[in-house]
Protein backbone atom coordinates (compact mmCIF):
# COMPACT_ATOMS: atom_id res chain seq x y z
CA UNK A 1 0.00 0.00 0.00
CA UNK A 2 2.85 2.29 0.95
CA UNK A 3 4.57 1.86 -2.37
CA UNK A 4 1.28 2.20 -4.24
CA UNK A 5 0.69 5.55 -2.59
CA UNK A 6 4.18 6.63 -3.47
CA UNK A 7 3.97 5.69 -7.09
CA UNK A 8 0.63 7.47 -7.42
CA UNK A 9 1.92 10.76 -6.06
CA UNK A 10 5.00 10.36 -8.23
CA UNK A 11 2.71 9.84 -11.16
CA UNK A 12 0.90 13.03 -10.36
CA UNK A 13 4.00 15.19 -10.12
CA UNK A 14 5.14 13.52 -13.33
CA UNK A 15 1.94 14.68 -14.95
CA UNK A 16 2.41 18.24 -13.71
CA UNK A 17 5.98 18.34 -14.91
CA UNK A 18 4.88 16.86 -18.22
CA UNK A 19 2.32 19.63 -18.51
CA UNK A 20 4.90 22.27 -17.62
CA UNK A 21 7.34 20.94 -20.16
CA UNK A 22 4.61 21.07 -22.82
CA UNK A 23 4.09 24.75 -21.97
CA UNK A 24 7.82 25.31 -22.15
CA UNK A 25 8.16 23.68 -25.57
CA UNK A 26 5.26 25.61 -27.01
CA UNK A 27 6.45 28.88 -25.49
CA UNK A 28 9.98 28.35 -26.76
CA UNK A 29 8.60 27.96 -30.25
CA UNK A 30 6.63 31.18 -29.95
CA UNK A 31 9.65 32.97 -28.47
CA UNK A 32 11.68 31.99 -31.54
CA UNK A 33 9.14 33.60 -33.85
CA UNK A 34 8.95 36.75 -31.76
CA UNK A 35 12.66 37.23 -31.36
CA UNK A 36 13.27 36.85 -35.11
CA UNK A 37 10.38 39.23 -35.80
CA UNK A 38 11.98 41.72 -33.42
CA UNK A 39 15.26 41.41 -35.28
CA UNK A 40 13.49 41.86 -38.62
CA UNK A 41 11.60 44.84 -37.24
CA UNK A 42 14.95 46.38 -36.26
CA UNK A 43 16.11 45.99 -39.89
CA UNK A 44 12.92 47.66 -41.07
CA UNK A 45 13.42 50.57 -38.66
CA UNK A 46 16.98 51.00 -39.98
CA UNK A 47 15.53 52.31 -43.25
CA UNK A 48 14.25 55.47 -41.48
CA UNK A 49 17.44 56.89 -39.98
CA UNK A 50 19.98 54.59 -41.61
CA UNK A 51 20.73 52.75 -38.36
CA UNK A 52 21.90 49.59 -40.10
CA UNK A 53 24.90 49.13 -37.82
CA UNK A 54 22.69 49.18 -34.75
CA UNK A 55 20.01 46.96 -36.32
CA UNK A 56 22.49 44.29 -37.39
CA UNK A 57 25.07 44.76 -34.61
CA UNK A 58 22.93 45.13 -31.51
CA UNK A 59 20.06 43.03 -32.86
CA UNK A 60 22.50 40.30 -33.92
CA UNK A 61 24.24 40.33 -30.53
CA UNK A 62 20.89 39.98 -28.81
CA UNK A 63 20.02 36.99 -30.99
CA UNK A 64 23.36 35.39 -30.20
CA UNK A 65 22.95 36.07 -26.49
CA UNK A 66 19.53 34.44 -26.40
CA UNK A 67 20.35 31.39 -28.48
CA UNK A 68 23.68 30.68 -26.82
CA UNK A 69 22.04 30.88 -23.39
CA UNK A 70 19.39 28.50 -24.63
CA UNK A 71 21.89 26.12 -26.14
CA UNK A 72 24.43 25.99 -23.33
CA UNK A 73 22.08 26.24 -20.38
CA UNK A 74 19.22 24.31 -21.90
CA UNK A 75 18.51 22.43 -18.68
CA UNK A 76 18.05 25.57 -16.66
CA UNK A 77 15.31 28.11 -17.11
CA UNK A 78 17.99 30.78 -17.20
CA UNK A 79 17.60 31.38 -20.95
CA UNK A 80 14.02 32.51 -20.32
CA UNK A 81 15.34 35.32 -18.10
CA UNK A 82 17.84 36.11 -20.84
CA UNK A 83 14.91 36.29 -23.25
CA UNK A 84 13.18 38.75 -20.93
CA UNK A 85 16.29 40.92 -20.82
CA UNK A 86 16.83 40.63 -24.59
CA UNK A 87 13.26 41.82 -25.24
CA UNK A 88 13.91 44.80 -22.97
CA UNK A 89 17.08 45.63 -24.87
CA UNK A 90 15.24 45.40 -28.20
CA UNK A 91 12.90 48.09 -26.87
CA UNK A 92 15.89 50.30 -26.13
CA UNK A 93 17.24 49.56 -29.60
CA UNK A 94 13.96 50.48 -31.31
CA UNK A 95 13.60 53.70 -29.32
CA UNK A 96 17.10 54.63 -30.36
CA UNK A 97 16.57 53.64 -33.99
CA UNK A 98 13.42 55.81 -34.22
CA UNK A 99 15.20 58.69 -32.50
CA UNK A 100 13.00 58.58 -29.42
CA UNK A 101 9.68 58.05 -31.18
CA UNK A 102 7.30 57.74 -28.26
CA UNK A 103 5.35 54.79 -29.72
CA UNK A 104 8.51 52.66 -29.61
CA UNK A 105 8.12 52.56 -25.82
CA UNK A 106 5.09 50.35 -26.43
CA UNK A 107 7.44 47.51 -27.42
CA UNK A 108 7.98 46.97 -23.69
CA UNK A 109 4.29 46.20 -23.26
CA UNK A 110 4.39 43.81 -26.17
CA UNK A 111 7.37 42.02 -24.59
CA UNK A 112 5.65 41.82 -21.26
CA UNK A 113 2.59 40.26 -22.89
CA UNK A 114 4.74 37.76 -24.81
CA UNK A 115 6.34 36.57 -21.57
CA UNK A 116 2.97 35.52 -20.10
CA UNK A 117 3.12 32.39 -22.25
CA UNK A 118 5.72 30.85 -19.94
CA UNK A 119 3.31 31.19 -17.02
CA UNK A 120 6.08 32.53 -14.77
CA UNK A 121 5.58 35.89 -13.14
CA UNK A 122 9.30 36.18 -12.34
CA UNK A 123 10.14 36.57 -16.02
CA UNK A 124 8.75 40.12 -15.82
CA UNK A 125 11.57 41.14 -13.48
CA UNK A 126 14.55 41.39 -15.89
CA UNK A 127 12.37 43.27 -18.38
CA UNK A 128 11.20 45.72 -15.74
CA UNK A 129 14.73 46.20 -14.44
CA UNK A 130 16.06 46.97 -17.90
CA UNK A 131 13.21 49.36 -18.67
CA UNK A 132 13.80 51.29 -15.43
CA UNK A 133 17.58 51.44 -15.84
CA UNK A 134 17.26 52.36 -19.51
CA UNK A 135 14.70 55.08 -18.90
CA UNK A 136 16.50 56.58 -15.96
CA UNK A 137 19.90 56.52 -17.63
CA UNK A 138 18.89 57.73 -21.07
CA UNK A 139 16.44 60.36 -19.83
CA UNK A 140 19.16 61.72 -17.57
CA UNK A 141 21.77 61.70 -20.34
CA UNK A 142 19.47 63.27 -22.94
CA UNK A 143 18.38 66.13 -20.68
CA UNK A 144 21.96 66.64 -19.55
CA UNK A 145 22.64 67.53 -23.16
CA UNK A 146 24.72 64.52 -24.22
CA UNK A 147 24.65 64.21 -27.98
CA UNK A 148 23.35 61.22 -29.92
CA UNK A 149 21.12 59.98 -27.16
CA UNK A 150 17.61 59.45 -28.35
CA UNK A 151 15.21 58.73 -25.54
CA UNK A 152 12.27 60.95 -26.32
CA UNK A 153 11.25 63.51 -28.86
CA UNK A 154 9.89 65.72 -26.10
CA UNK A 155 11.99 68.76 -25.36
CA UNK A 156 11.15 68.59 -21.77
CA UNK A 157 9.93 65.90 -19.44
CA UNK A 158 8.99 66.68 -15.87
CA UNK A 159 9.89 64.26 -13.10
CA UNK A 160 6.16 63.83 -12.58
CA UNK A 161 5.66 62.68 -16.21
CA UNK A 162 8.66 60.38 -15.90
CA UNK A 163 7.32 58.82 -12.68
CA UNK A 164 3.87 58.32 -14.21
CA UNK A 165 5.55 56.65 -17.16
CA UNK A 166 7.56 54.24 -14.98
CA UNK A 167 4.72 53.48 -12.56
CA UNK A 168 2.35 52.65 -15.44
CA UNK A 169 4.96 50.38 -17.01
CA UNK A 170 5.48 48.64 -13.67
CA UNK A 171 1.72 48.29 -13.27
CA UNK A 172 1.32 46.66 -16.68
CA UNK A 173 4.23 44.31 -16.02
CA UNK A 174 2.72 43.40 -12.65
CA UNK A 175 -0.63 42.62 -14.22
CA UNK A 176 1.07 40.44 -16.86
CA UNK A 177 3.01 38.73 -14.09
CA UNK A 178 -0.21 38.18 -12.19
CA UNK A 179 -1.87 36.59 -15.21
CA UNK A 180 1.12 34.30 -15.67
CA UNK A 181 0.90 33.26 -12.03
CA UNK A 182 -2.87 32.73 -12.21
CA UNK A 183 -2.65 30.60 -15.34
CA UNK A 184 -0.10 28.35 -13.76
CA UNK A 185 -2.02 27.99 -10.51
CA UNK A 186 -5.20 27.26 -12.39
CA UNK A 187 -3.56 24.59 -14.55
CA UNK A 188 -2.03 22.92 -11.52
CA UNK A 189 -5.33 22.95 -9.70
CA UNK A 190 -7.01 21.44 -12.70
CA UNK A 191 -4.48 18.61 -12.93
CA UNK A 192 -4.83 18.05 -9.21
CA UNK A 193 -8.59 17.79 -9.54
CA UNK A 194 -8.41 15.33 -12.41
CA UNK A 195 -6.00 13.22 -10.41
CA UNK A 196 -8.10 13.21 -7.28
CA UNK A 197 -11.04 12.09 -9.36
CA UNK A 198 -8.95 9.40 -10.99
CA UNK A 199 -7.66 8.25 -7.63
CA UNK A 200 -11.17 7.90 -6.28
CA UNK A 201 -12.24 6.01 -9.39
CA UNK A 202 -9.19 3.79 -9.06
CA UNK A 203 -9.99 3.03 -5.46
CA UNK A 204 -13.58 2.21 -6.31
CA UNK A 205 -12.40 -0.02 -9.12
CA UNK A 206 -9.96 -1.76 -6.81
CA UNK A 207 -12.66 -2.37 -4.26
CA UNK A 208 -15.07 -3.67 -6.88
CA UNK A 209 -12.33 -5.92 -8.20
CA UNK A 210 -11.54 -7.20 -4.75
CA UNK A 211 -15.18 -7.87 -4.03
CA UNK A 212 -15.66 -9.69 -7.30
CA UNK A 213 -12.55 -11.73 -6.64
CA UNK A 214 -13.77 -12.58 -3.19
CA UNK A 215 -17.17 -13.48 -4.57
CA UNK A 216 -15.72 -15.78 -7.22
CA UNK A 217 -13.62 -17.59 -4.63
CA UNK A 218 -16.43 -17.91 -2.14
CA UNK A 219 -18.92 -19.00 -4.76
CA UNK A 220 -16.55 -21.56 -6.22
CA UNK A 221 -15.78 -22.91 -2.77
CA UNK A 222 -19.44 -23.12 -1.88
CA UNK A 223 -20.19 -24.88 -5.16
CA UNK A 224 -17.35 -27.32 -4.79
CA UNK A 225 -17.90 -28.27 -1.15
CA UNK A 226 -21.20 -30.10 -1.66
CA UNK A 227 -19.98 -31.46 -4.97
CA UNK A 228 -17.00 -33.03 -3.29
CA UNK A 229 -19.21 -34.44 -0.56
CA UNK A 230 -21.22 -36.08 -3.33
CA UNK A 231 -18.06 -37.50 -4.85
CA UNK A 232 -17.09 -38.90 -1.47
CA UNK A 233 -20.49 -40.49 -1.06
CA UNK A 234 -20.30 -41.97 -4.55
CA UNK A 235 -17.00 -43.61 -3.60
CA UNK A 236 -18.58 -45.13 -0.51
CA UNK A 237 -21.63 -46.41 -2.37
CA UNK A 238 -19.39 -47.88 -5.05
CA UNK A 239 -17.52 -49.68 -2.34
CA UNK A 240 -20.66 -51.13 -0.86
CA UNK A 241 -22.38 -52.46 -3.93
CA UNK A 242 -21.51 -55.21 -6.36
CA UNK A 243 -24.51 -54.63 -8.61
CA UNK A 244 -23.16 -54.05 -12.07
CA UNK A 245 -25.74 -51.54 -13.26
CA UNK A 246 -25.50 -49.53 -10.10
CA UNK A 247 -21.74 -49.37 -10.48
CA UNK A 248 -22.16 -48.20 -14.05
CA UNK A 249 -24.55 -45.45 -13.01
CA UNK A 250 -22.28 -44.46 -10.18
CA UNK A 251 -19.36 -44.12 -12.56
CA UNK A 252 -21.45 -41.90 -14.83
CA UNK A 253 -22.51 -39.86 -11.83
CA UNK A 254 -18.93 -39.55 -10.70
CA UNK A 255 -17.78 -38.54 -14.16
CA UNK A 256 -20.36 -35.80 -14.34
CA UNK A 257 -19.63 -34.52 -10.86
CA UNK A 258 -15.92 -34.43 -11.68
CA UNK A 259 -16.65 -32.59 -14.88
CA UNK A 260 -18.66 -29.99 -13.02
CA UNK A 261 -15.89 -29.66 -10.47
CA UNK A 262 -13.26 -29.21 -13.18
CA UNK A 263 -15.45 -26.61 -14.83
CA UNK A 264 -15.75 -24.60 -11.62
CA UNK A 265 -11.96 -24.78 -11.19
CA UNK A 266 -11.48 -23.62 -14.79
CA UNK A 267 -13.76 -20.64 -14.29
CA UNK A 268 -11.82 -19.76 -11.17
CA UNK A 269 -8.51 -20.02 -13.05
CA UNK A 270 -9.89 -17.88 -15.83
CA UNK A 271 -11.04 -15.13 -13.52
CA UNK A 272 -7.83 -15.30 -11.50
CA UNK A 273 -5.69 -14.91 -14.62
CA UNK A 274 -7.74 -11.94 -15.70
CA UNK A 275 -7.51 -9.96 -12.52
CA UNK A 276 -4.43 -10.82 -10.52
CA UNK A 277 -1.14 -9.04 -11.07
CA UNK A 278 1.75 -10.94 -12.57
CA UNK A 279 4.09 -12.31 -9.94
CA UNK A 280 7.83 -12.72 -10.23
CA UNK A 281 8.65 -15.99 -8.47
CA UNK A 282 11.79 -18.05 -8.74
CA UNK A 283 10.86 -21.17 -10.69
CA UNK A 284 12.26 -24.63 -10.17
CA UNK A 285 10.81 -26.69 -12.99
CA UNK A 286 11.63 -30.02 -11.40
CA UNK A 287 9.57 -29.20 -8.32
CA UNK A 288 6.79 -27.72 -10.40
CA UNK A 289 6.51 -30.86 -12.52
CA UNK A 290 6.63 -33.13 -9.48
CA UNK A 291 3.77 -31.22 -7.93
CA UNK A 292 1.73 -31.34 -11.12
CA UNK A 293 2.41 -35.06 -11.48
CA UNK A 294 1.24 -35.63 -7.92
CA UNK A 295 -2.00 -33.74 -8.54
CA UNK A 296 -2.70 -35.49 -11.82
CA UNK A 297 -2.22 -38.91 -10.28
CA UNK A 298 -5.83 -38.88 -9.16
CA UNK A 299 -7.10 -37.83 -12.51
CA UNK A 300 -9.64 -39.70 -14.56
CA UNK A 301 -9.04 -43.26 -15.58
CA UNK A 302 -6.64 -44.55 -12.96
CA UNK A 303 -6.62 -48.08 -14.34
CA UNK A 304 -4.06 -47.08 -16.97
CA UNK A 305 -1.00 -45.34 -15.75
CA UNK A 306 0.57 -42.89 -18.15
CA UNK A 307 4.33 -42.89 -18.43
CA UNK A 308 5.60 -39.54 -17.25
CA UNK A 309 8.94 -38.61 -18.84
CA UNK A 310 10.63 -35.33 -17.95
CA UNK A 311 13.82 -33.87 -19.33
CA UNK A 312 15.12 -30.55 -18.03
CA UNK A 313 18.14 -28.87 -19.59
CA UNK A 314 19.80 -25.62 -18.55
CA UNK A 315 20.79 -24.15 -15.22
CA UNK A 316 19.74 -20.53 -15.62
CA UNK A 317 17.75 -19.09 -12.74
CA UNK A 318 14.19 -18.67 -13.99
CA UNK A 319 11.67 -16.11 -12.82
CA UNK A 320 8.05 -16.16 -13.77
CA UNK A 321 4.55 -16.28 -12.34
CA UNK A 322 4.42 -19.61 -10.55
CA UNK A 323 0.66 -19.81 -10.30
CA UNK A 324 0.10 -19.07 -14.00
CA UNK A 325 2.94 -21.34 -15.07
CA UNK A 326 1.50 -24.12 -12.96
CA UNK A 327 -1.85 -23.50 -14.57
CA UNK A 328 -0.45 -23.60 -18.09
CA UNK A 329 1.53 -26.81 -17.58
CA UNK A 330 -1.27 -28.44 -15.64
CA UNK A 331 -3.73 -27.85 -18.46
CA UNK A 332 -1.45 -29.01 -21.24
CA UNK A 333 -0.23 -32.09 -19.35
CA UNK A 334 -3.69 -33.06 -18.15
CA UNK A 335 -4.88 -32.84 -21.75
CA UNK A 336 -2.12 -35.24 -22.74
CA UNK A 337 -3.31 -37.67 -20.09
CA UNK A 338 -6.99 -37.14 -20.81
CA UNK A 339 -6.71 -37.68 -24.54
CA UNK A 340 -4.63 -40.82 -24.41
CA UNK A 341 -5.08 -43.43 -27.08
CA UNK A 342 -6.70 -46.55 -25.64
CA UNK A 343 -5.42 -48.63 -28.55
CA UNK A 344 -1.79 -47.95 -27.68
CA UNK A 345 -0.06 -50.14 -25.20
CA UNK A 346 2.16 -47.62 -23.49
CA UNK A 347 0.66 -44.16 -23.25
CA UNK A 348 3.23 -41.51 -22.38
CA UNK A 349 3.62 -37.81 -21.74
CA UNK A 350 7.04 -36.43 -22.48
CA UNK A 351 7.94 -33.02 -21.10
CA UNK A 352 11.15 -31.43 -22.33
CA UNK A 353 12.22 -28.16 -20.83
CA UNK A 354 15.05 -26.07 -22.24
CA UNK A 355 16.05 -23.22 -19.98
CA UNK A 356 17.82 -20.41 -21.80
CA UNK A 357 18.95 -17.04 -20.47
CA UNK A 358 15.96 -14.99 -21.53
CA UNK A 359 13.32 -17.64 -22.15
CA UNK A 360 12.28 -21.20 -21.53
CA UNK A 361 11.13 -23.58 -24.25
CA UNK A 362 8.76 -26.28 -23.12
CA UNK A 363 7.73 -29.19 -25.27
CA UNK A 364 4.88 -31.41 -24.13
CA UNK A 365 4.35 -34.40 -26.39
CA UNK A 366 2.15 -37.47 -26.13
CA UNK A 367 1.15 -40.50 -28.18
CA UNK A 368 -2.54 -39.79 -27.67
CA UNK A 369 -5.44 -39.63 -30.08
CA UNK A 370 -4.17 -36.45 -31.76
CA UNK A 371 -6.07 -33.40 -32.98
CA UNK A 372 -7.57 -33.35 -36.51
CA UNK A 373 -5.94 -30.69 -38.66
CA UNK A 374 -9.17 -28.76 -39.23
CA UNK A 375 -9.73 -28.50 -35.47
CA UNK A 376 -6.24 -27.24 -34.67
CA UNK A 377 -6.82 -23.52 -35.26
CA UNK A 378 -9.86 -23.59 -32.96
CA UNK A 379 -8.45 -25.41 -29.94
CA UNK A 380 -7.64 -22.16 -28.11
CA UNK A 381 -11.15 -20.79 -28.52
CA UNK A 382 -13.33 -20.37 -25.47
CA UNK A 383 -15.54 -23.43 -24.86
CA UNK A 384 -14.25 -25.19 -27.98
CA UNK A 385 -13.86 -28.94 -27.60
CA UNK A 386 -12.32 -31.00 -30.34
CA UNK A 387 -13.48 -34.30 -28.89
CA UNK A 388 -16.86 -35.20 -27.49
CA UNK A 389 -15.57 -38.34 -25.86
CA UNK A 390 -14.09 -36.73 -22.83
CA UNK A 391 -14.99 -34.50 -19.97
CA UNK A 392 -13.19 -31.22 -20.66
CA UNK A 393 -14.83 -27.86 -20.06
CA UNK A 394 -13.52 -26.39 -23.29
CA UNK A 395 -11.75 -23.73 -21.23
CA UNK A 396 -8.37 -25.37 -20.63
CA UNK A 397 -6.40 -24.27 -23.67
CA UNK A 398 -8.23 -20.97 -23.75
CA UNK A 399 -6.93 -20.30 -20.24
CA UNK A 400 -3.46 -21.48 -21.30
CA UNK A 401 -3.44 -19.00 -24.17
CA UNK A 402 -4.75 -16.17 -21.98
CA UNK A 403 -2.22 -16.88 -19.23
CA UNK A 404 0.61 -17.07 -21.77
CA UNK A 405 -0.60 -13.75 -23.14
CA UNK A 406 -0.20 -12.22 -19.71
CA UNK A 407 3.30 -13.69 -19.39
CA UNK A 408 4.33 -12.62 -22.89
CA UNK A 409 4.74 -16.22 -24.04
CA UNK A 410 3.61 -18.22 -27.05
CA UNK A 411 2.14 -21.63 -27.80
CA UNK A 412 2.12 -23.72 -30.96
CA UNK A 413 0.78 -27.17 -31.68
CA UNK A 414 1.66 -29.92 -34.08
CA UNK A 415 -0.49 -33.00 -34.13
CA UNK A 416 -1.54 -35.95 -36.24
CA UNK A 417 -4.57 -38.10 -35.60
CA UNK A 418 -3.60 -41.50 -34.26
CA UNK A 419 0.03 -40.48 -33.77
CA UNK A 420 0.03 -37.91 -31.03
CA UNK A 421 0.24 -34.26 -30.15
CA UNK A 422 3.10 -31.91 -29.30
CA UNK A 423 2.67 -28.47 -27.77
CA UNK A 424 5.57 -26.03 -28.03
CA UNK A 425 5.48 -23.36 -25.38
CA UNK A 426 7.82 -20.42 -25.09
CA UNK A 427 7.91 -18.38 -21.89
CA UNK A 428 10.11 -15.31 -21.42
CA UNK A 429 12.25 -15.24 -18.31
CA UNK A 430 11.18 -12.36 -16.08
CA UNK A 431 14.43 -11.31 -14.48
CA UNK A 432 14.40 -10.19 -10.87
CA UNK A 433 15.56 -6.68 -11.63
CA UNK A 434 12.29 -5.92 -13.41
Amino acid at each position, binding site marked *: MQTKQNSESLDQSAHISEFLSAIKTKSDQLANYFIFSFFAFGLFLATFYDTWQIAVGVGGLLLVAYFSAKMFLADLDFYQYVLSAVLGLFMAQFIYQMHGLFEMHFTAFLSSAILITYQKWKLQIPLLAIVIVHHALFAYLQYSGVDGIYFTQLDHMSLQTFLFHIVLVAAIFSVCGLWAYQFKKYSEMHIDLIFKKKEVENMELKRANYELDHFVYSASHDL*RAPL*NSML*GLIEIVKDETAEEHTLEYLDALKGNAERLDAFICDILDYSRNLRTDIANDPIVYRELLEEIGKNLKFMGD*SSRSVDFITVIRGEEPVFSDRSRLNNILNNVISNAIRYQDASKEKPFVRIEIDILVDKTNIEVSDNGIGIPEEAQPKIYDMFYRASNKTLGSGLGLYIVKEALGRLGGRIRVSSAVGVGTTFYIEIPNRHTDK
Partner: protein
Amino acid sequence: MEATNQKKLYRKVLVIDDNPTDRFIAEKMIEKCGFAQQTILCESAQEALEYLGALEHEPDELPQLIFLDISMPGMDGYGFLEQYAKFPEVVRARSIILMLTTSLHPDDITRAQNSPFVARFINKPISRDKLDMIRNDFPIVY
Protein backbone atom coordinates in the same frame (compact mmCIF):
# COMPACT_ATOMS: atom_id res chain seq x y z
CA MET B 1 -10.27 -56.87 3.64
CA GLU B 2 -7.47 -59.35 3.84
CA ALA B 3 -5.03 -56.99 2.23
CA THR B 4 -5.84 -53.96 4.31
CA ASN B 5 -5.56 -55.94 7.53
CA GLN B 6 -1.94 -56.54 6.81
CA LYS B 7 -1.19 -52.82 6.63
CA LYS B 8 -0.41 -51.02 9.81
CA LEU B 9 -3.22 -48.97 11.27
CA TYR B 10 -3.00 -45.56 12.85
CA ARG B 11 -4.08 -45.89 16.43
CA LYS B 12 -6.25 -42.84 16.52
CA VAL B 13 -7.33 -40.24 13.94
CA LEU B 14 -9.21 -37.02 14.66
CA VAL B 15 -11.50 -35.48 12.05
CA ILE B 16 -12.60 -31.86 12.53
CA ASP B 17 -15.35 -30.84 10.11
CA ASP B 18 -18.62 -29.00 10.53
CA ASN B 19 -20.23 -30.79 7.58
CA PRO B 20 -21.90 -34.03 8.79
CA THR B 21 -21.66 -35.62 5.32
CA ASP B 22 -17.95 -34.98 5.14
CA ARG B 23 -17.46 -36.36 8.66
CA PHE B 24 -19.40 -39.42 7.63
CA ILE B 25 -17.32 -39.83 4.45
CA ALA B 26 -14.10 -39.50 6.40
CA GLU B 27 -15.18 -41.99 9.03
CA LYS B 28 -16.46 -44.46 6.47
CA MET B 29 -13.40 -44.20 4.25
CA ILE B 30 -11.05 -44.59 7.18
CA GLU B 31 -12.98 -47.64 8.24
CA LYS B 32 -13.12 -49.14 4.75
CA CYS B 33 -9.43 -48.69 4.10
CA GLY B 34 -8.44 -50.01 7.49
CA PHE B 35 -6.68 -46.71 8.05
CA ALA B 36 -7.07 -46.32 11.81
CA GLN B 37 -8.21 -48.25 14.84
CA GLN B 38 -10.21 -45.39 16.17
CA THR B 39 -11.73 -42.32 14.53
CA ILE B 40 -12.81 -39.37 16.63
CA LEU B 41 -15.20 -36.92 14.98
CA CYS B 42 -15.51 -33.30 16.10
CA GLU B 43 -18.03 -30.94 14.57
CA SER B 44 -16.25 -27.77 15.60
CA ALA B 45 -12.75 -26.50 16.23
CA GLN B 46 -13.80 -25.66 19.78
CA GLU B 47 -14.86 -29.22 20.48
CA ALA B 48 -11.59 -30.54 19.08
CA LEU B 49 -9.54 -28.17 21.23
CA GLU B 50 -11.41 -29.31 24.31
CA TYR B 51 -10.86 -32.91 23.37
CA LEU B 52 -7.14 -32.41 22.85
CA GLY B 53 -6.82 -30.27 25.98
CA ALA B 54 -8.39 -32.99 28.10
CA LEU B 55 -5.70 -35.44 27.00
CA GLU B 56 -2.83 -33.23 28.05
CA HIS B 57 -1.90 -35.60 30.85
CA GLU B 58 -2.32 -38.78 28.84
CA PRO B 59 -0.33 -37.93 25.70
CA ASP B 60 -0.45 -41.50 24.51
CA GLU B 61 -4.15 -41.07 23.96
CA LEU B 62 -3.64 -38.15 21.58
CA PRO B 63 -4.49 -38.72 17.88
CA GLN B 64 -1.63 -39.40 15.50
CA LEU B 65 -3.34 -37.64 12.64
CA ILE B 66 -5.70 -34.68 12.61
CA PHE B 67 -7.79 -33.94 9.51
CA LEU B 68 -8.71 -30.29 9.77
CA ASP B 69 -11.30 -28.53 7.63
CA ILE B 70 -10.48 -24.88 6.87
CA SER B 71 -13.87 -23.27 6.45
CA MET B 72 -16.06 -23.78 9.47
CA PRO B 73 -18.54 -21.43 11.09
CA GLY B 74 -17.32 -19.77 14.26
CA MET B 75 -13.71 -20.79 14.72
CA ASP B 76 -12.26 -21.88 11.39
CA GLY B 77 -9.25 -24.05 10.67
CA TYR B 78 -6.81 -21.18 11.13
CA GLY B 79 -8.44 -20.24 14.41
CA PHE B 80 -7.92 -23.81 15.52
CA LEU B 81 -4.22 -23.63 14.56
CA GLU B 82 -3.77 -20.43 16.57
CA GLN B 83 -5.21 -22.06 19.66
CA TYR B 84 -3.37 -25.30 18.96
CA ALA B 85 -0.08 -23.36 19.02
CA LYS B 86 -0.76 -22.62 22.69
CA PHE B 87 -0.74 -26.28 23.67
CA PRO B 88 2.40 -27.56 25.42
CA GLU B 89 5.01 -29.26 23.28
CA VAL B 90 4.06 -32.72 24.62
CA VAL B 91 0.64 -32.37 23.06
CA ARG B 92 1.78 -30.89 19.77
CA ALA B 93 4.55 -33.43 19.25
CA ARG B 94 2.09 -36.29 19.02
CA SER B 95 -0.06 -35.21 16.12
CA ILE B 96 0.37 -34.53 12.44
CA ILE B 97 -2.15 -32.04 11.05
CA LEU B 98 -3.48 -32.40 7.51
CA MET B 99 -5.56 -29.56 6.13
CA LEU B 100 -8.61 -30.89 4.36
CA THR B 101 -10.48 -28.51 2.16
CA THR B 102 -12.15 -27.64 -1.12
CA SER B 103 -10.65 -24.18 -1.22
CA LEU B 104 -8.48 -23.24 -4.18
CA HIS B 105 -7.73 -19.79 -2.87
CA PRO B 106 -3.95 -19.30 -3.14
CA ASP B 107 -4.03 -17.38 0.14
CA ASP B 108 -5.54 -20.40 1.85
CA ILE B 109 -2.91 -22.66 0.38
CA THR B 110 0.02 -20.44 1.33
CA ARG B 111 -1.42 -19.85 4.78
CA ALA B 112 -1.74 -23.58 5.32
CA GLN B 113 1.77 -24.18 3.99
CA ASN B 114 3.22 -21.46 6.17
CA SER B 115 1.79 -22.87 9.36
CA PRO B 116 4.47 -24.89 11.13
CA PHE B 117 1.86 -27.42 12.27
CA VAL B 118 0.32 -28.26 8.91
CA ALA B 119 2.02 -31.18 7.22
CA ARG B 120 -0.03 -31.23 4.04
CA PHE B 121 -2.88 -29.59 2.18
CA ILE B 122 -5.34 -32.21 0.91
CA ASN B 123 -8.31 -31.65 -1.35
CA LYS B 124 -11.64 -33.15 -0.43
CA PRO B 125 -13.06 -35.72 -0.63
CA ILE B 126 -10.97 -38.23 1.24
CA SER B 127 -10.46 -41.19 -1.06
CA ARG B 128 -8.71 -44.51 -0.92
CA ASP B 129 -5.83 -43.16 -3.02
CA LYS B 130 -5.32 -40.20 -0.75
CA LEU B 131 -5.35 -42.30 2.39
CA ASP B 132 -2.81 -44.65 0.81
CA MET B 133 -0.64 -41.66 -0.03
CA ILE B 134 -0.86 -40.38 3.53
CA ARG B 135 -0.01 -43.80 4.94
CA ASN B 136 2.93 -43.92 2.61
CA ASP B 137 4.23 -40.41 3.34
CA PHE B 138 3.67 -40.38 7.09
CA PRO B 139 4.71 -43.83 8.31
CA ILE B 140 3.22 -44.98 11.59
CA VAL B 141 5.60 -44.75 14.51
CA TYR B 142 4.85 -46.39 17.82
